């Protein structure tokens, strides 16, 4: 009987070890993703280093589902640059091009006007009520790099949450059932 008990114990201990290993490897994946994201934040100086284009206002340059890499440096903002900005009272940041810049002589404070390449008029209608210009603090970063289509993954997942749950479930199942 002692022999059987030993066997059961060893099986139990194996399963426990396997469980711990799987939990650790899952933790490694999650934490390394977090490390990469935070490292990108440090390198680019932008609070969200990668954004997904959600609207067609910059077509044909940027289409819905494209990914933009942002960079926020101390360099002054100039006309023609594509900036990502937040407007007070709006949750989703906007990616548009700068068409006018007025930079103060004494303080260096800038007044910026933006426009979407595919829009007819400038962005004053999108700004907060009565706001004529964007200031430095509205701007989250400028677009420096471009990758097409990849952002569709996140768009699909936010618009069809079921797919997200299926994907998470399938991945979880894979992690639990996989051996080695």
């Amino acid at each position, binding site marked *: 009987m002692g022999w059987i008990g030993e066997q059961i114990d060893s099986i139990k201990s194996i399963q426990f070890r396997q469980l711990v290993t799987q939990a650790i490897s899952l933790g490694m994946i999650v934490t390394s993703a977090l490390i990469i994201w935070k490292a990108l934040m440090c390198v680019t100086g932008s609070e969200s280093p990668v954004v997904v284009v959600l609207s067609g206002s910059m077509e044909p340059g940027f289409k819905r589902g494209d990914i933009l890499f942002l960079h926020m440096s101390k360099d002054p903002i100039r006309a*023609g640059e594509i900036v990502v900005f937040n407007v007070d009272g709006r949750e989703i940041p906007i990616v548009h091009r700068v068409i006018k810049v007025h*930079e103060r*002589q004494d303080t*260096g404070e800038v007044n910026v006007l933006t426009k979407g*390449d595919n829009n007819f008029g400038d962005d004053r209608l999108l700004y907060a009520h009565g706001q004529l210009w964007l200031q430095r603090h509205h701007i989250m970063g400028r677009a420096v790099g471009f990758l097409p289509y990849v952002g569709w993954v996140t768009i699909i997942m936010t618009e069809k949450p079921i797919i997200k749950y299926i994907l998470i479930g399938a991945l979880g199942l894979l992690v639990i059932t996989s051996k080695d």
Partner: protein
Amino acid sequence: MHSFGYRANALLTLAITILAFMCGIASLSDNFNSPAPTAQVQVLNINWFQKKPDGDDEISLTLNISADLQSLFTWNTKQVFVFLAAEYETPKNALNQISLWDGIIPSKEHAKFLIHTTNKYRFVDQGSNLRGKDFNLTLHWHVMPKTGKMSANKLVMTGYRLPETYR
């Protein structure tokens, strides 16, 4: 070891790695292109020049813009965004940049053009400094790649002096 899952995983990883590598190479290959665009701009006419009720100067211009931007296009170029900006300094502002005209060039065939236009966006100063003001006309271009790094450059052209009086 040789289950369907493992093989699918290996194939997917390889495919994504190769795709990422090719995107990187395509973006890097843009560095070998050394463009030499040319452009000319003429201010043909001042349509009107006035002080708005709120005290800011506004002017309307007619422009002739000709440019040859064909050398900007490479196989990784999706489009070139080109715009003409008036740039000047005032006692209050160290830099004023006002886009007067812009356009999207979708392909190399359209990169050589001549356009006769009035200013597309309003040329309004912050204040009343435009009488007798010298400004630079600068042609800027932003190259949008099919994938990878965006690049931009400019060509500063002859300046223009605005008249001393409203008209």
